[in-house]
């Protein structure tokens, strides 16, 4: 069935100069014409392994054989010349150049107009079924098309092996479908593909074999046909992960908001408390990291005025006038594809969109239309793109968490304590509160961004894709935290492309399309496929639904 391996790794190790061990002897075999899935939690060594394969960093030990010959690529150029093309997650294209010029960036030669090169670019675009105009400016293209350009760029030299690092992480459903089609096409044409992803379903439907990394070791290697999601998830996490399954409403904590003023004492914040263990003494909620469980019943939703009320909140061209209310302790999910207006809604509520019109009322009081006023009123936004909107990379964990604090003086001791408490409660993997956030992995950086808002002053959480691009362990931690906070009375609006997450933890789900809330859905009576169908409109079936 399978011929000689194209690429073989035996015991590949990588030790960084500071002593950190990233890879502890990884074996991996790739064959031509096969799609190989690579999975692992953040920090498991995937990025390091990719960089070793791409020639970007040298391995510290072990053996790499390419077409049966031992090799040691000294530079990305050497790896490319041998036939390995790598497409990185953060698409490194020049936005001010055209598609064809981006595709020709690697080519040597004197003239900018390169007829042979253009012909080759055309040929490659043809292979991909012409997803873009060769002369379009890359900066003008939607992100999904840019991903196609990046793939095309990688294919220019006709590589035998294509490494794709989370090519679908930032794409919406129908854009992912296009990437899947291309991957299948490339494999059919005899290329080997190493496909790195966080999405278990796409790994299962797309790949022929799977390797899972954990702590720098390959802990699972199997044919995809012999696996299911649970087996892969267990290998990634190293423990059996209880899948995030929805509990019937009756089993969960009732919507039981504390009356105004008492909330601070009831909630399990750490900002003022001395130890995080002293959390939620009143309502018997177990520690949040362990999930949520029933607590004594005490009244229903109707008794309390809504925490949040929107009156005709809209923004020209982005968001149709929207009215809705959110009760204390309620998690309202917002399901929509990329560009459906879901982020725009959150930004409008937060006052981050100066063009937005309409009223936002928190506990019946109108809130001014700037982020400063929203923060002062207790509205917190966890933005979609944590690196460019969420944290300050050069600042420490403690400083980032303290960023929304107002007042005159910093209080280093208190901020440090708050950071330590956050590190413990959210299980942030970091050396200490003084480590710069820029050095953390995605999931841990995201936890810092969320921790920033976990103060007694927060009255409403706006979460924009809080679990995008992070591993399954961190994802579960974060979702459980959101649910636990809601059970303590803190309402949340949750945007996610992972509709299963919405179904798992939301009290109700709003479906958005084209800047408009088109439906309200009860998560108990819907499923992922139905949600996708509603949200994607013209694309009744996507890969995610399959």
């Amino acid at each position, binding site marked *: 069935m399978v011929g000689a391996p194209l690429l073989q790794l035996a015991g590949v190790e990588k030790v960084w100069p500071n002593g950190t061990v990233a890879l502890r002897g990884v074996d991996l075999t790739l064959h031509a014409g096969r799609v190989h899935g690579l999975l692992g939690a953040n920090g498991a060594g995937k990025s390091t392994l990719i960089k070793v394969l791409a020639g970007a960093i040298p391995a510290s030990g072990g053996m790499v054989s390419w077409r049966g010959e031992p090799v040691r690529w000294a530079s990305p150029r050497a790896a490319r010349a041998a036939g390995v093309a790598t497409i990185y997650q953060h698409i490194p294209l020049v936005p001010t150049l055209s598609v064809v010029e981006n595709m020709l960036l690697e080519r040597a030669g004197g003239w900018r107009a390169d007829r042979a090169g253009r012909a080759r670019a055309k040929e490659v675009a043809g292979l991909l079924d012409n997803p873009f105009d060769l002369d379009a400016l890359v900066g003008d293209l939607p992100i999904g098309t840019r991903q196609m350009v990046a793939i095309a760029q990688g294919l220019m030299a006709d590589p035998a092996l294509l490494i794709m690092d989370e090519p679908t992480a930032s794409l919406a459903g129908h854009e992912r479908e296009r990437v899947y089609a291309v991957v299948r096409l490339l494999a059919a044409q005899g290329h080997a593909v190493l496909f790195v992803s966080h999405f278990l379903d796409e790994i299962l439907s797309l790949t022929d074999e799977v390797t899972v990394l954990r702590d720098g070791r390959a802990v699972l290697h199997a044919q995809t046909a012999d696996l299911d999601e649970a087996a892969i998830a267990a290998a990634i996490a190293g423990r059996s992960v209880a899948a995030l399954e929805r509990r019937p409403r009756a089993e969960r904590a009732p919507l039981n908001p504390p009356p105004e003023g008492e909330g601070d004492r009831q909630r399990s914040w750490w900002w003022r408390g001395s130890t995080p263990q002293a959390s939620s003494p009143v309502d018997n909620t177990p520690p949040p990291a362990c999930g949520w469980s029933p607590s004594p019943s005490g009244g229903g939703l109707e008794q309390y005025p809504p925490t949040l009320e929107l009156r005709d909140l809209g923004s020209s061209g982005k968001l149709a006038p929207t009215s809705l209310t959110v009760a204390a302790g309620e998690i309202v999910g917002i399901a929509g594809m990329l560009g459906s207006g879901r982020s725009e809604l959150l930004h409008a509520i937060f006052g981050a969109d100066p063009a937005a019109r309409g009223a936002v009322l928190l506990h019946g009081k109108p809130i001014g239309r700037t982020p400063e006023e929203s923060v002062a009123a207790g509205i917190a936004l966890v933005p979609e793109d944590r690196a*460019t909107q969420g944290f300050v990379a050069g600042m420490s964990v403690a400083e980032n968490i303290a960023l929304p604090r107002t007042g*005159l003086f910093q209080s280093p001791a208190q901020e440090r304590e708050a950071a330590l408490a956050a590190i413990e409660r959210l299980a942030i993997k970091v050396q200490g509160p003084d480590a710069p956030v820029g050095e953390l992995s995605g999931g841990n950086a995201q936890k810092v961004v969320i921790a920033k808002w976990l103060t007694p002053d927060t009255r409403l959480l706006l979460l924009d894709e809080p679990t995008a691009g992070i591993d399954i362990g961190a994802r579960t931690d974060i979702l459980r935290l959101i649910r636990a906070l809601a059970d303590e009375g803190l309402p949340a609006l949750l945007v996610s492309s992972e509709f299963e997450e919405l179904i798992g933890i939301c009290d109700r789900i709003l479906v958005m399309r084209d800047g408009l809330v088109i439906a309200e859905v009860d998560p108990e009576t819907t499923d992922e496929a139905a949600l996708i169908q509603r949200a994607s409109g013209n694309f009744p079936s996507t890969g995610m639904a399959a």
Partner: protein
Amino acid sequence: MMQTTDWRAGLGLRKAGIYYALLILLALLAGIAHSRGLPAYLSAQNLGNIAYQASLVGIMGVAMTVMLITGAFDLSVASVAALAAAVLVGLAPSIGFPLAALAAIVTAVSVGLFNGVIVQFVGINAFIVTLGTLTAVRGLVLVLTDGRSLMVEQPEVLQQMLAFESTRVPLFWPLLALAVALLAFAAFRRRIAPGLGGIVVAGLALLAGRDFAVAAPVVYLALFTALVWAVLRFTVVGRRIYAVGGNAEAARLSGVNVHAYKLGAFILSSAAAGFAGVLFGCRLGAINPTALQGAELTVIASAILGGTSLFGGAGSVLKTVAGALLLFTLTNGFNVLDLGASYQGLIEGIVVIAAAAIYTIGGNRRRAA
């Protein structure tokens, strides 16, 4: 263990290099002076002179550092200072020194406000806007002075101006008090850096002797630097200044009024330039239209020598002042020791590039590790 590595890094080349460079340069110049049989280079008077010469650039440099930390840039400071000096010298004879000084600073602030509004609300790059005001404001100075030197001729106004600028402030006891305070703080909080600072300050005071006094601008520089340093180091405003430069969008979405901070930096920069201009006008009681031309580059060079990033989010005002002192020590050394003034520019330029190279290479290595 963490604490140990912290203070070691604090004394490393990247963190404290500018102070070492300044000390080495002083030692080198002292050695040359000694070998040539010139009067002692490290005399209190000469050191006071260097600080005096560096004071105007230092004041502008401190504000420039805040500006650079927020991620913006101000090329117009020297022109603004010249404008303030022209307003002061032009108005002082008719409305008196205090009002004229106020008018000068208000004028400077309005230029800063103009710069800031254009940069923030029209969205033009700060480099371009302030390059424009650099030229335009210098042109305005020419218009106001009609291309000639202006002078203050009333002796009593001149007297006030000189008193503001040239009074010598005795520093022996204040320096000793500062040293004791630093040492006490270091002992109390078990910190290394303030202790070293205290020892250095005490050493300087004892070395300079009981009659040690400096011109008023040095004191202004010291007070301004201390104030800005404390704001950056201890207040929420300070953290937010770094956050605005480090990631403006993250700061905005954390409830920081980014516009206000960026605008504030432009206003601070111009206000400091205005104050420097007032000091400059007082120094001579006169202003010529080309005064301070090119000083903006020395100001920016000081900040770069001090390790301030042009990309925002990082920088230290203390090191900027050390950078200014280093540049003026070079100038002073070339003059006092007669080392050939022709080499001065060449050496200064090389020093700036070498400093930036050290910071960049050090920074990369840290990131790679």
